[in-house]
């Protein structure tokens, strides 16, 4: 963490809100990007990014300057995303249970988990964006996804990724390896499929 950041943190702790705003401004887009990749939905990502900045301000006194502000923000955001995912999953199960009791099926059009399901889940805000990357990310397991985003898309080291997610370096390596293999298979598979169709025509 550079001296300028340390100074901004010190001033923010002393009650200077403009110092915190300056600190947050430099990371606001990378924070939003991380939340968007983790959730796959822009509205949810925006909520998570806001909550992350609020929490980081509230608990700024607990921040260890040796760790770096960006990694600390990412850690809060990753925890938020994980909690958000759990709540969403519980809500989904509850709705399915209710719909089952009423004799209706909410997801009658979905044919199991797959790329099409991702488009159904996307909100109108995200449907305007290109969804290619999220389509691939949605095929990964939750831990693989978090590790891949932090290591490959955000460019953190193995150790930093482990620190942000609160897991061991070995776990990061294992999940990163399987995530990369899946991404490769998916991209090559889709390309081969596409080229195969092209040749058939």
């Amino acid at each position, binding site marked *: 963490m550079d001296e300028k950041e340390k100074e901004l943190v010190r001033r*923010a*702790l002393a009650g200077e*809100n403009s110092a*915190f*705003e300056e600190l947050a401004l430099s990371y*606001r*887009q990378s924070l*939003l*990007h991380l939340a*968007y*990749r983790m959730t796959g939905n*822009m509205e949810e990502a*925006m909520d998570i*990014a*806001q909550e992350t*900045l*609020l929490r980081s*301000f*509230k*608990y*700024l*006194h*607990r921040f260890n300057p040796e760790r770096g502000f960006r990694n600390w923000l990412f850690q809060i955001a990753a925890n938020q995303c994980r909690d958000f995912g759990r709540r969403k999953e519980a809500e989904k199960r509850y709705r399915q249970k209710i719909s089952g009791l009423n004799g209706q099926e909410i997801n009658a059009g979905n044919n199991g988990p797959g790329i099409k399901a991702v488009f159904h889940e996307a909100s109108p*805000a995200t449907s305007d*964006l*290109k969804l*290619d*990357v999220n389509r*691939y990310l949605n095929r990964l397991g939750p831990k693989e996804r978090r590790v891949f985003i932090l*290591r*490959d*898309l955000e460019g953190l080291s*193995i150790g930093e990724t482990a620190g942000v997610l609160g897991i061991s370096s070995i776990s990061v*390596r294992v999940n*990163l*390896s*399987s995530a*990369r*293999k899946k*991404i*490769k298979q998916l*991209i*090559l598979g889709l390309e081969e499929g596409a080229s195969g169709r092209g040749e058939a025509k």
Partner: protein
Amino acid sequence: MNCKRVRAKLALYISDDLSRRWQAKIDAHLKGCPDCQLELKNLKEALVGIKEADRAESRSLPDWGRTRWDELMKEISRTETGRKGRPAPPVEPRKRLAYRLAAAAGLFILVLAGYFMIGEFRLRPSRPQAAEKEAIGIPEGSRQSGSLPERIEMVFRLPESGVQVVWILDRNFNPEGVKK
């Protein structure tokens, strides 16, 4: 090293996330294996492709928007940092020294009390009862109150034969000699 083992590690080899030993082994294998070279190439292309797609999408991500950002900053200005959940303030150095001295004094008193209690039991000589004194034959002259005699004579008699054995010991129970 076979291709299967190499391919299992290519996903980490690509970003230098393996140990030096493994990196060197895979380097050596790749030099002579076109199939694994192709596998590595495909993996690299896939990862480069997804990273480029991510960068392209990121450029089109919406910004926070001035209104939303200002609202957040207003909310932050209403939040008090560090007031809730702040850890207990550190103890003043002078008070800390006083606590340490008090703890040391308490410990010293305990040790001292323990020493005297144990010493009392250990140092006090066990005083034999009158019958025991008679049985072991402590001479009258050597009976001194509060301390052991210089010489101790222990006499064992066998009632059947009348044979008696006398052990003469010093006050540390070391035998000086055996008589009779």
